[in-house]
């Protein structure tokens, strides 16, 4: 579903600024859904739109099959978008050829979830971080200084530059991945579940690092995660996805305090909370998450929704304004 007029999306802070990244009607379909007799596309990302301002963090949350990781990778064109616009600093890069797009890669980088598989085990740490520099720098420029500076910035010892990834711990490897992402001085870093694979005590270190870097360098983040508490801590605005669509988007405080969409409410209720004497009854969401290959007709959430009525099967709801810059897609809110 599309979100009209740009200014309203960026309404927090109140003075609208030009957006760093604007995604409009992004779609990614894969073949192979439905059945043999009636083949359908798997709608991994089904028409989403949002924008991210300079120095801002947009959190993207959802469960398996919601398409958040696919969306993140499609924005970076690691996956080819089926249709839609990806407007980076005012220029639509979705339709560019690989060669034309390559210079824009300097502005958008990515940090991956798996600290073990996201680093080439056969390359030394120095080379891993230097690679982006060598891709875009002068051919003869093998100076160690910029790499050493990056190591320091993310809290790694310069002496570790000659080590292989297997000699680092999980948290250190993630720092290495962050150093690599910073090398080209990007404006936007897509963080695809950057702390999910880390222990809680290390998560805090990496989250603090990401926040420090944002402050120092004016970075924007697209923070994709399933941990709602972490997203709440690091984001200014949050979008909730379900089966390829954004069902709710809004400022973080407002969305968490007053969720409007039944899925958001259920998600927040399901998160186990560490509170004193917490053993309250919860309304649990019944059933399983439908497969993206065979989504329900109309509103895709209706099979699990406590508020579902017959009208929900007919057409899928559009995002409606609920409050300042707060949108939800439900027929009944």
């Amino acid at each position: 579903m599309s979100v009209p007029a740009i200014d309203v999306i960026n309404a927090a802070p109140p003075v609208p600024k030009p957006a760093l990244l604007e995604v409009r009607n992004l779609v990614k379909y894969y073949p192979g859904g439905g059945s043999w007799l009636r083949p359908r596309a798997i709608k991994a990302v089904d028409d989403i739109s949002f924008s991210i301002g300079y120095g801002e963090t947009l959190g993207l949350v959802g469960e398996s099959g919601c398409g958040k990781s696919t969306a993140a990778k499609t924005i970076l064109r690691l996956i080819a978008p089926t249709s839609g616009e990806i407007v980076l600093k005012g220029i639509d890069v979705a339709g560019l050829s690989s060669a034309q797009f390559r210079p824009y890669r300097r502005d958008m980088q990515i940090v991956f979830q798996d600290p073990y598989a996201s680093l080439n085990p056969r390359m030394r740490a120095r080379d891993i971080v230097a690679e982006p520099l060598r891709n875009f720098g002068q051919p003869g420029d093998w100076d160690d200084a910029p790499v050493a500076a990056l190591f320091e910035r993310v809290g790694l010892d310069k002496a570790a530059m000659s080590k292989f990834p297997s000699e680092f711990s999980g948290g250190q490897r993630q720092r290495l991945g962050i150093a690599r992402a910073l090398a080209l001085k990007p404006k936007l870093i897509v963080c695809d579940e950057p702390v999910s694979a880390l222990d809680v005590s290390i998560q805090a270190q990496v989250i603090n690092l990401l926040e420090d870097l944002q402050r120092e360098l004016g970075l924007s983040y697209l923070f994709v995660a399933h941990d709602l508490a972490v997203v709440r801590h690091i984001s200014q605005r949050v979008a909730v996805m379900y089966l390829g669509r954004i069902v709710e988007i809004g400022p973080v405080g407002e969305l968490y305090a007053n969720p409007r969409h039944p899925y958001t409410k259920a998600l927040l209720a399901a998160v186990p909370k560490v509170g004193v004497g917490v053993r309250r009854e919860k309304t649990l969401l019944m059933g399983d998450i439908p497969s993206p290959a065979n989504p329900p007709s109309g509103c895709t959430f209706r099979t699990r929704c406590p508020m579902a009525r017959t009208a929900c099967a007919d057409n899928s709801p559009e995002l409606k304004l609920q409050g300042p810059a707060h949108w939800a897609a439900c027929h009944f809110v």
Partner: protein
Amino acid sequence: MSTPILEVDNLHLTFASRDGITRAVEGVSWQVHAGEMLGVVGESGCGKSVTAMAILRLLPGAPTTHATGAIRFHGEDLLHASEARMQEIRGNEISMIFQDPMTSINPVLTIGEQIAEVLMLHQHLGRKAAWVRAVELLALVNIPDPQRRVKDYPHQFSGGMRQRAMIAIALACKPAVLVADEPTTALDVTIQAQIMELLDRLRRETGTAIVLITHDLGVVAESCDRVVVMYAGRKVEEAATPDLFAQPGHPYTRGLLSAMPHLDTPLTQPRTRLAEIPGMVPSLRTAAVGCRFAPRCSLAVDMCREKIPSFEPIAISNPLHRAACWRTTIVSEEVAA
């Protein structure tokens, strides 16, 4: 207090490899009673999973694994029981469910066959009777249309349903104890809530004791009666759940709770930094003289580095809430600040 069904008593687990000896578990003791859910919580490498594997003797034998201490089930020491006796116990009197339902269930057998296998083996049911019971069990764990689904293969189930199937297999013989090793870590949060609710309901209905091993403090807070916190192979705190979260006694527990963002902390602009625990978990290859947490602890003094702290209550009023810390328990007045 009633007698515990399962008791781990001063367990030491060591693993030997070419690179040296790893002291995975050092002097850990806890108990669980009928109908109780005990949470064993800690980060990776703390030894919680290997303790669970040791209960059912699923670890490789000597010389790789070396175990001392006792694990008593109804008073019987499982560490020294015969393999034949262990086979009687596994799946029958003590069951286990694992983290990844895709790899913990045999993908080439139907779900019904796997449930029936346990029933035929331990309860000596005939094939037909076992299948009937399998359908009943699937209904018990809320799998819709169990008559049809009992003939399905694991890949035809979703992740949450596979986990339910694994619970069905585990509870088929009505075990006295269920050991759940990170059962919801791989599941989405809405499915996790369903599974935890199922486990809670089942233990209240059947009286099975559950040992829940996890790294997620939230899950423990909502479901467990008592909690044991482990760090680097040792038990550092033990308490009833509300007590632990109201007044965490060990600096590590406090550190974990402050390092996690919570849904109800106030949102300031800019955000308050998460309180980090500096440093990393120590290597378990080297023997530690004092408290394992001392290098990372802001309260540490010389005594902490020299002597392993004894397990003491944190307040005289609540002897069941205990921690291993020289600075925060009732022995702290002996330790000069």
